């Protein structure tokens, strides 16, 4: 299975019926593909819609309805259009059940860095700082390593997105659960051993006696 599909499918299992969920652009947005409509989830796009839907049929795209990445989308029945003050009021005010974001680094304290590589990439934080500060549950969905470098590190060397400890990290190798005493190895990707995960991880992990394999259904 494609690594991104694997991550998206595993994250989708965390999304419970009736939740309001914000998905970041890129990999996190793929999570919606694995959440059945019957689950009754509302997706928020921070540019101003609650009830984001799939891509419109070809030829039906409208420039007044896009997601936060600027792509054409639809709105599901029951959707609401909101302005940016309301959108971030929902995010910061504790009304958003879950956010799924990409990451550059996560460290042993569960801190996320995902908005800047000083001197190289300064895209701006967009909504990421508000999302990580305000959402009830923060899930980081990212590849375990980039260019052979572990993205799970002892301490973030890149600028932090927020002080808040994220709730879950899902990678192509593992599910990690940040706790007060460190990063717990909660699950292994299918066919991946604990030793392989430890070898690919720069940070110290708390490893229980039994590490179950990810369920993806």
């Amino acid at each position: 299975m494609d690594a991104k599909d694997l991550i998206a499918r595993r994250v989708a299992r965390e999304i419970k019926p009736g939740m309001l969920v914000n998905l970041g652009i890129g990999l996190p947005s793929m999570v919606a593909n694995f959440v059945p409509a019957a689950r009754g989830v509302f997706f928020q796009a921070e540019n101003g819609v609650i009830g984001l839907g799939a891509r419109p049929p070809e030829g039906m795209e409208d420039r007044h309805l896009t997601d936060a990445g600027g792509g054409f989308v639809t709105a599901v029945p029951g959707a609401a259009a909101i302005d940016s003050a309301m959108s971030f009021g929902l995010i910061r005010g504790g009304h958003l059940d879950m956010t799924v974001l990409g990451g550059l680094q996560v460290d042993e304290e569960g801190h996320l860095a995902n908005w800047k590589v000083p001197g190289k990439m300064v895209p701006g934080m967009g909504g990421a700082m508000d999302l990580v500060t305000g959402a009830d549950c923060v899930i980081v969905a990212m590849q375990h390593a980039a260019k052979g470098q572990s993205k799970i590190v002892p301490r973030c060397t890149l600028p932090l997105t927020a002080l808040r400890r994220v709730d879950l990290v899902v990678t192509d190798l593992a599910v990690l659960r940040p706790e007060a005493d460190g990063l717990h190895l909660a699950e292994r990707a299918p066919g991946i051993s604990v030793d392989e995960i430890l070898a690919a991880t720069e940070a110290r992990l708390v490893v229980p006696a039994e590490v179950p394999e990810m369920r993806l259904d």
Partner: protein
Amino acid sequence: MKGVLKPEAAAAMIPDGASLMIGGFMAVGTPERLIDALVARGARGLTVIANDTAMPGKGIGKLISAGCVAHVIASHIGLNPETQAKMIAGEIGCELVPQGTLVERIRAGGVGLGGVLTPTGLGTEVEDGKQVVEVQGKRYLLETPLTADFALIAAHTADYIGNLSYMLTAHNFNPVMAMAGRTVIAEPDSIVPLGVIAPDAVKTPGVLVDHLLIRKG
């Protein structure tokens, strides 16, 4: 409402060095004809306050490419490599602000508040140089209000006295900016007689709007 303007008259009203709030999110809900007129006039030294600088060839990206902009206050410039290149070369000053903080600073400026207390940015680079205020045992950053000489607004529908309604994800920063510009120029897709926009559908009352852009053609 003081009257309708042709795009070139609107651009002539905006002097070099002016500060502009410009609605839009990745050029969705951005007043494109006003921007085209500013580019055609060869405006210089503008300060642009906006969510993002779109991408080259679209929305605010056209102002960046044409060298109209000296300073940007935005949450995200990652999809416009020209803004990043000009920032790194020192041609454009750039203040990056978390999106939820940006919209609330604009709101504060528009509604007469002396600032905003937000948890977003605590413990990150965003905190640098800012006052931390403790209220009821919680820590917040004090963020200052923003106003501008002009607010350039994109609306879906305007009536003859400047009441505005917006569509779907084209609301974004427009309703908030319409309160924070000293002169407000709105570019609607359609202008309709009084009464066609129902009072409950008016998102920006006409009393806030100084000028409407005359319709195309």
